[in-house]
């Protein structure tokens, strides 16, 4: 036996090799965060708004005393219908565009012609890089106050995203059946119809419902920039300092967004786990039929007429805008302003993601459903926390920004925090679900050998949950940049504010420059986050 021999041998430790790439990314992220916080004025100057606290007190007091008079509730109900109609018609347009676009950008269409495929994808990046609200502001200048503005503002960017996702879903479907059909002499189209669409159908339908759910939030936000509906009522009440009405509108739109989220998740859950009996799922069939009816109703309710899209006035206005918008303005003053605003935008998005990530890590444990038995208090706290996260993500970020502006001086921080709490709602749920799905045995084993709960969490949960949660946070960063532009449109600074001021003066050449900056920034953030995710793997 070599037992005794082993005891005398004390080998030196091999060198601890750290993953250089990961350390570089980690240090880089810490540096960027510190730079962003410094930019937000956290280390210098005042961030709190002492004058706002009295106003905030009145505002907060109104939360318990919202306006419930019949006249205002009637206004809210009508505007809620408008918001739902915008969302439904916008989604219908997006799905139609997405289905057509998916054919254009799927690998199946392009086969080995990679250059063509890349070019098609690149074209889609432009509508995707601009927030719905930006589209709304641009379209209102072409179409005037027309219901098409909101529908197109939702439909165009959503259509681009939908095309990309639909194409990916079809490309990822198992290809055996498709190849067999092609080999048997079927044409491309019929082979795709019989061999590719059926396996991808569940995913496609699920994504369509997800888009409808997102469209409700987008329609509220579009209202806030003037497209009508609940968001518009909220902005009006806010501007006229009627806090009771503001709260009624906030409650109404929270309820609407919550209902959309709960219904959408329910449908998607059913799609993910179809009943084994093989019969048609009645609830799903009803949901699909109901949605189709909703779309038809939306077109009728909004009185959408294709004629207004091609009227003489629209055509002349579009031609005028396009002529004025090219070439983009390149004077030094504007470029400096664009650069400074881009820096602000990046800083806001970085702080927002950091806030959301910190919150998500802290809340993941308590918000997750415990694996074994647990006390009623623990279960109640968990349910309460999950409800809170649902509310955080259901309410659009600009609403949070309006609330925070009472407490904080205008600048980078209120926008960043508003975006941060909204993103926390998304990331917190994801982190809790990741924790729930982990194998609970290693943690139980550590608890069994006497480790404290914090230590057991550090050694058994954190190492396994960190990867997926960080990857998703990086993915949300791109979304945060787009949302930062939106908050900017409503006055929180950054590229959005610059865009709003150039639009207000009809300086179309400058608008083009800012739009190009927004698209390039979104694209750059996408590339960086993609690289960082690759380093995590």
């Amino acid at each position: 036996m070599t037992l005794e021999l082993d005891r005398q041998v004390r080998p030196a430790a091999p060198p601890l090799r750290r993953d250089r790439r990961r350390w570089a990314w980690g240090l880089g992220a810490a540096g960027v965060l510190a730079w962003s916080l410094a930019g937000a004025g956290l280390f210098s100057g005042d961030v709190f708004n002492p004058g706002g606290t009295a106003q905030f007190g009145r505002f907060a007091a109104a939360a318990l005393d919202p306006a419930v008079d019949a006249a205002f509730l009637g206004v809210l109900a009508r505007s809620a219908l408008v918001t739902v109609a915008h969302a439904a018609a916008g989604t219908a347009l997006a799905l139609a565009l997405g289905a057509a676009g998916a054919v254009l950008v799927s690998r199946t269409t392009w086969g080995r012609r990679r250059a063509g495929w890349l070019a098609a994808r690149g074209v889609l990046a432009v509508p995707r890089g601009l927030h719905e609200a930006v589209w709304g502001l641009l379209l209102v200048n072409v179409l005037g106050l027309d219901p098409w503005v909101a529908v197109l503002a939702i439909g165009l960017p959503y259509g681009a995203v939908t095309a990309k996702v639909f194409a990916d879903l079809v490309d990822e479907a198992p290809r055996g059946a498709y190849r067999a059909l092609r080999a048997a002499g079927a044409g491309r189209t019929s082979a795709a119809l019989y061999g590719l669409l059926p396996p991808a159908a569940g995913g496609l339908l699920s994504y369509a419902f997800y888009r409808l759910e997102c469209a409700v939030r987008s329609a509220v936000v579009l209202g806030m920039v003037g497209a009508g509906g609940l968001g518009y009522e909220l902005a009006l009440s806010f501007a006229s300092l009627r806090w009771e009405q503001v709260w009624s509108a906030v409650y109404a739109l929270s309820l609407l967004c919550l209902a959309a989220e709960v219904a959408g998740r329910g449908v998607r859950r059913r799609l993910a786990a179809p009943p084994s009996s093989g019969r048609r799922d009645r609830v799903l069939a009803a949901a699909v039929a109901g949605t189709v009816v909703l779309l038809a109703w939306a077109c009728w309710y909004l009185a959408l007429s294709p004629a207004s899209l091609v009227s003489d006035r629209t055509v002349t206005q579009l031609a005028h805008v396009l002529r004025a918008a090219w070439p983009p303005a390149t004077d030094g003053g504007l470029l400096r302003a664009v650069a400074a605003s881009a820096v602000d935008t990046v800083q806001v998005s970085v702080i927002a993601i950091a806030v959301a990530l910190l919150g998500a890590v802290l809340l993941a444990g308590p918000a997750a459903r415990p694996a074994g038995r647990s006390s009623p208090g623990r279960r109640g706290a968990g349910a309460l926390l999950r409800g809170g996260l649902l509310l955080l993500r259901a309410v659009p970020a600009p609403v949070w920004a309006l609330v925070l502006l009472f407490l904080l001086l205008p600048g980078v921080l209120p926008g960043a925090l508003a975006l941060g709490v909204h993103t926390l709602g998304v990331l917190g749920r994801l982190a809790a679900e990741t924790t729930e799905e982990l194998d609970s045995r290693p943690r139980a084993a550590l608890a069994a050998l006497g480790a404290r709960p914090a230590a057991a969490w550090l050694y058994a949960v954190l190492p396994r949950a960190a990867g997926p949660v960080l990857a998703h946070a990086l993915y949300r960063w791109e979304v945060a940049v787009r949302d930062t532009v939106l908050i900017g449109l409503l006055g929180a600074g950054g590229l959005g504010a610059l865009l709003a001021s150039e639009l207000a003066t009809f300086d179309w050449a400058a608008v083009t420059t800012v739009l190009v900056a927004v698209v390039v920034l979104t694209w750059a953030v996408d590339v960086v986050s993609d690289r960082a995710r690759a380093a995590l793997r």
Partner: protein
Amino acid sequence: MSPTAGTVRVLGADPAALSGRDRHRLLARVGTVHQSLELVGRLRVVHDVNAGRLASWSAARAAWSLVRPQGLPEVLAALARVGLADRVFERTERLSGGQRQRVAIARLLVQQPDLVLADEPASALDPVLADRALALLGEPARTRGGALVAALHDAGLVRRHCDRVVGLAGGRVVLDAPVTALSAADLAELYGAAT
């Protein structure tokens, strides 16, 4: 885990009656090698071994150790005894099944428990390593007056490393004898009863 009837006494104390610090102390004195090992694959080997000492570490020290491994000499000594000292900074998920089993034993060695519970600790090891693993697991019993309770299927291992055999079939004790008194007929009867 609570008993269906009666009480459980571990090292002279009822774990269900203890709480807080006393309970942690008692838990730290019992080391377990689970059949599925319960290691965290994403961690480096050094952290999975150090996890055996979490009962005596503060949360802050446990967190810092993930950045700068603490108590490296003890970890290296334990890993050297299972023949894995050169893999100390490897990720545990990159190790083979048998190597992971040895990491679990190293974790037990740094824990230094008085009572060792091992569920088939030699199942993924070749005969030489299996003998070595059982010798290491039995060490607390020999040097500190503790005990090793192991579930084994290999009669040869039982004869070489154990003092007492308890045979279970259908949840009942069908055999309880010193190893020296164990006969081939006893074993045949035990395995006959089990099938």
